């Protein structure tokens, strides 16, 4: 292999597994280290800059970072990255303002945002800082989008939501609430320099053809609409027996909400096997914790109506078969159907995009699936000054993806307004800084904690089931937060090798607890991966290869399970290994 070029930021970027997996590339190890030092304000600020909603995401993020965490490759559980974000948000100084200066002098460009969810708010924040004027349109009375209308307060208290949303609105967004845009022409006619559409995936799927659907209409609700109705107190109670259909996070929110509004016997029915459920494992656990059975492999057959009233549902039992390439088919198990009595059914069987307000005369072209044709990188639609982001762009995803979209769209809008090519995107800003204090002392805490992941304390169940506004999770306290933060393996502190001073004593090889380092004859990647000291079969993690050494060998390090413990650098007599902190900040609008 050719010697690794560590000047290319992508090498070490990949080594920081969590940051790499995060759609917004939040500098996770850095904020965790700050938490371990009790610097909550700084930890919060790093998050806010990158993901805009630390307090919100610290509660409800889908956490793609956690399954990626390096710790899962050396022990069972990842660092509680998400809950640590909340530790920063909960413990930051209430008096600290995290709002940076918004320029008084505007740049003369005006942007219209349609939809007030996380994607739009991210665009607003990024562009306000550059002197843009922002108008925001939403059909609700408050901003936040689905994070407000769909996510129940017992998972995300309104106070936390308001704090982070108002911070952006207070930066100078002109809002037009309770304004449903029924034709995009209304906005186009206002002659904005650019328009950003982030209206989510507002339509909950129905089961219109299931027998009994029409007759039972009074007792059958679309999950997301029902949750919004609860928020606005149009719904304040449920009957005792409730069935929730669906296996995603919305289904989990619906069933847990039903438990709080009087549902004693709440059950979730899922067509597929449990292992295929879309909901996050922790959401499923929380629902079960509240005494809600999740019944899998049951496909709905009909709503049973007696005397014009819903009395229950019939289900058919299914079995899943998998063909050679792992594709699943569900087939009836051939057993008699199962009747389950109930007084209320909530449908949480998926969400769809809907753009009845975007007509063909707008020039925005749609694809076969009814989604706008949008560039994956620039977020530009077929109309040059109209951009899309969030669930509205590529279908339902999650909040952190919407934030990442917002950043990218803001970059594009800024380039567009300045007459630059949208492909001329700013590069991430990176730095590599030595952590050396002394022969054996580092600026970071190199000890590897062997503590297991700490559980998040929760409020008493009886209490929380009586009050839908009470947050279930209490969050880590400072002490547990510190302990959890210490579990982070500092994946941003990189081992940097200088082949020109190495005397090939192999002390580093000997001391490495996980056998990452090798001195061997060079070969191509396949060959090298095959004959390293320890199996190097995780292709998501790169090999780090040096130039040819005096013995005609090369140093090859498999980055896969390096603990960033610094022992190699401590044992090297010639300081050929050095621990250096690699900082990677994704580009944002206006950066060079």
């Amino acid at each position, binding site marked *: 292999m050719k010697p690794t070029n560590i000047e290319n930021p992508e090498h070490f970027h990949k080594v920081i597994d969590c940051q790499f997996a995060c759609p917004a590339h939040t500098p996770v190890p850095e904020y965790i280290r700050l938490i371990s030092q009790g610097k909550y304000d700084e930890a919060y600020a790093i998050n806010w800059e990158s993901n805009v909603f630390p307090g919100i995401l610290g509660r409800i993020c889908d956490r793609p970072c956690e399954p990626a965490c390096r710790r899962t*490759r*050396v*022990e069972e559980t990842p660092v509680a990255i998400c809950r640590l974000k909340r530790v920063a948000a909960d413990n930051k100084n209430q008096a600290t303002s995290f709002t940076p200066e918004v320029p008084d002098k505007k740049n003369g460009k005006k942007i219209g945002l349609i939809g007030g969810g996380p994607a739009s708010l991210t665009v607003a924040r990024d562009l306000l800082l550059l002197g843009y004027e922002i108008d925001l349109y939403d059909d609700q009375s408050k901003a936040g989008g689905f994070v407000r209308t769909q996510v129940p307060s017992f998972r995300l208290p309104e106070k936390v939501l308001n704090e982070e949303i108002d911070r952006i609105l207070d930066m100078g967004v002109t809002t037009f609430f309770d304004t449903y845009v029924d034709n995009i022409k209304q906005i186009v006619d206002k002659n904005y320099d650019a328009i950003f559409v982030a209206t989510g995936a507002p339509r909950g799927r129905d089961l219109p053809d299931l027998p009994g659907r029409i007759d039972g209409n009074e007792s059958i609700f679309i999950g997301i609409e029902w949750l919004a109705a609860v928020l606005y107190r149009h719904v304040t109670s449920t009957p005792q027996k409730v069935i929730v259909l669906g296996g995603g996070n919305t289904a989990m929110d619906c069933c847990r909400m039903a438990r709080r509004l009087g549902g004693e016997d709440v059950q979730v029915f899922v067509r597929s096997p449990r292992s295929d459920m879309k909901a996050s494992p922790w959401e499923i656990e929380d629902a079960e914790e509240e005494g809600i059975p999740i019944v899998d492999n049951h496909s709905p057959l009909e709503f049973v109506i007696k005397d014009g009233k819903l009395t229950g549902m019939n289900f058919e039992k299914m079995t899943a078969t998998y063909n050679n390439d792992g594709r699943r088919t569900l087939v009836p198990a051939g057993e008699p159907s199962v009747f389950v009595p109930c007084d209320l059914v909530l449908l949480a069987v998926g969400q769809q995009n809907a753009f009845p307000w975007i007509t063909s005369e707008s020039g925005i072209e749609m694809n076969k699936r009814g989604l706008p044709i949008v560039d994956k990188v620039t977020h530009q639609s077929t109309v040059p000054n109209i951009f899309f982001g969030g669930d509205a762009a590529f279908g339902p995803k999650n909040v952190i993806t919407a934030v990442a979209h917002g950043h990218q769209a803001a970059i594009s809008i800024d380039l567009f307004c300045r007459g630059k090519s949208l492909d001329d995107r700013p590069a991430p800003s990176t730095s590599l800084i030595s952590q050396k204090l002394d*022969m*054996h*002392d580092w600026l970071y805490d*190199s*000890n*590897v904690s*062997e503590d297991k992941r700490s559980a998040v304390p929760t409020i008493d169940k009886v209490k929380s089931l009586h009050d839908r506004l009470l947050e279930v999770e209490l969050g880590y306290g400072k002490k547990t937060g510190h302990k959890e933060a210490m579990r982070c393996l500092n994946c941003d502190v990189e081992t940097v090798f200088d082949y020109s001073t190495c*005397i*090939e*004593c*192999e*002390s580093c*090889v*000997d*001391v490495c*607890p*996980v*056998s990452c380092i090798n001195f061997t004859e060079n070969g191509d990647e396949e060959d090298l991966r095959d004959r390293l000291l*320890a*199996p190097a*079969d995780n292709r998501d993690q790169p090999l780090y290869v040096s130039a040819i050494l*005096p*013995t005609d060998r090369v140093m090859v390090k498999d980055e896969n*399970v390096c*603990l960033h*413990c*610094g*022992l190699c650098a*401590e*044992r*090297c*007599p*010639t300081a050929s290994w050095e621990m250096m902190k690699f900082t990677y900040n994704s580009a944002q609008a206006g950066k060079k």
Partner: protein
Amino acid sequence: MSHAHPNFRHPKQPENDAGYTRRDYEGAISTLCAGCGHDSTTNAIIQACFELNVEPHRVVKISGIGCSSKTPAYFLSRSHGFNSVHGRMPSIATGANMANRDLLYIGISGDGDTASIGMGQFAHALRRNLNLNYICMNNGCYGLTKGQDSATADRGSASKKGIPNPYESIDLCELAIELGASYVARGFSGDKKQLVPLLKGAMAHNGLAFIDVISPCVTFNNTASSTKSYHYVREHIETTNTFDFVPLQQEILTHYDEGTSQEVTMHDGSIIHLHKVDSSKDLTSRQKAVNNLEKEKEKGRFLTGLLYVNPQIEETHDLINSTLYPLNTLTEEDLCPGSEILDRINSALR
């Protein structure tokens, strides 16, 4: 500064046939200087024990005094150990070995510990062909006491102090061959590919296996003027042979051309295959082995690899006809066979 080794290991760390992972052969974190050759030698020992499926609790580590003699703390923490006095490793090893012949003995010493204060002990252990793996970590100096020249420092070699050594050096391998060791090898801490098989061969060998491991002292004797620096050794190394160690019960898969290879069957049935550069070198002849060493020395080269092996020589227990069983397994009946036998012995002595 890290005082502890993290406990996490590679998730796919293999197990050997005895059910152990390499970690089971590790010890405490080393406190030697960063880059010390002794740490690499230690690791080669760990690797050899792992590959040979040695059971850690059936190993005894004994050492004298010196940085080298500290290393038993850094490997096989689940074995028996005794850190003795300067130069006295061989007598402690002899005593232990006499008491229990069933265990694997690893004696660790340094060039100071062996070639100066311990010379007398060394000579007699060789002479008796004690069943011991005698590993001398040779750095040409007294590392622990700040780098004074040792008796293995070459004439003219200068350590960090900068004063060339005026005396002739002692070649411990030559001595070992002459005084009765039955397995003699030289390795280099910086070449584990060669060192690990040499150690495995030694462990499979019955009798005194002496391994002189050139193991640079980075702190006091890794200078440009030293003949025991990493650089100098790499430049002047010569190898007798490459080496295949085929443990007992393993099929021999390689084909060896006649004349270029020598096969030596070890006591336990394992086989050593030597691929010789020069087929005239017979490694079972004492005289030729010494000649080989001298010839390379004249050229200013170090000869490494297996230098001499003779599995036929009897070890101490055979020589003194001692009991076949560890002393702690002997019963009262074994030890006091009755007055009839005592009478017989007494009458034989009259």
